[in-house]
C-alpha cells in the first residue's frame, strides 16, 4: 500500500509526471478515435447513397 502511494507520489513530482502521461494518453487516444468515427460515418454515408440510388433505379 505504501509502495503504491510512493509510486503515485513520484518523489513529489506526481502532479507533473502524471499530468504529462495523462495528456499524452488523451491525445494519442483521440488521434485514434476521431478518424475511426469519421471513417465509420463515411462508410455509412456511402451505403446510404448507394441504397437510395438502388431504390431510385427500382422505382423508375
Amino acid at each position, binding site marked *: 500500500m505504501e509502495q503504491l502511494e510512493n*509510486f503515485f507520489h*513520484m*518523489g*513529489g*513530482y506526481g502532479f*507533473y*509526471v502524471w*499530468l*504529462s*502521461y495523462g*495528456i*499524452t494518453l488523451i*491525445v*494519442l487516444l*483521440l*488521434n*485514434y478515435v476521431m*478518424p*475511426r468515427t*469519421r*471513417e465509420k460515418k*463515411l*462508410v455509412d454515408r*456511402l*451505403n446510404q447513397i*448507394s441504397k437510395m440510388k438502388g431504390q431510385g433505379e427500382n422505382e423508375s
Partner: protein
Amino acid sequence: MWKWITKYASPMHFYLLANRLTPWFGWSAAVLFAVGLYGAFFYAPADYQQGESFRIIYIHVPSAWMSMFVYMVMAGAGAAGLIWKTKVSDAVARSCAPLGASFTFLALATGSLWGKPMWGTWWVWDARLTSELILLFLYLGYIALQSAIDDRRTAARAGAILALVGVVNIPIIHYSVIWWNTLHQGPTISKLDSPSIHIDMLIPLLVMALAFNLYFAAMVLIRARMEIVEQEKNSKWVQELIVDKVSV
C-alpha cells in the same frame, strides 16, 4: 521495383495495403507501449539530479522526435505529390498534419510540465522552445490551408509548398541547442562522444521511441485510407470493396 511503386501508388492498391498493414503496426505499437511504460516506471532508475521527474523524458523525447520526423514525411509526401501528381502521396501528406501537430503539442506540453519543477519556469523564449513552437504553427498553417481550399488538388499543391518551405525549421530545431546559448540542454542521444544517458534509462527510451513510430505508422494509414475513400467515393472499386463488400 518501379512497377511495384506504381502499383501501390494506385489508390485501390494503397487502400488494400493500408488495410492489411494497419493492425500489424497498431498491435505492435500497443505491445511496445506496454513494454516501454513498464521500463519507464519500473526498470529505469530515478535520475541523480532530477529524481522521479526525469520519467517525463519517456514521452517528451519521443514526441519531440516524432514532431520532426512526421514533418519530414509530410514534406516528402508533398514533394512526391508535386512531382508525380499521385493521389496517394497527397493523402499521406494530408494525414500527417494532425498527427504531427499532436506530437508537437505533446512535446511542448510535456516539456512545459518538466520545465516547471526543474528549470523553475513553464516557458522561456529560447531558441529550442521557440523553434518547436514555430513547428506547431507550421502544422496548424498547413491544416488551415487544407480546410481553406476546396479543390483537393490545389489544396494539396499549396500545402506541399508550405511544408517544403517550412523544412528549414527542422535543422534549426535540432541544432538550436548547439548554435545558441539556450536554457534547454544539449542533445543527449545524438551526441557523438561518450553516451550521456545510462543504459538502463536508454533502453526504455528507445522502446518508447519505436512504439511512437509504429503508432504513427498505424494512425497515418488509417487516416490516409479514409482520405482515399473520400477522394474516390464515386469510383467503381470503392463501390465494390466498401459498399458491396466484395472480397478481393
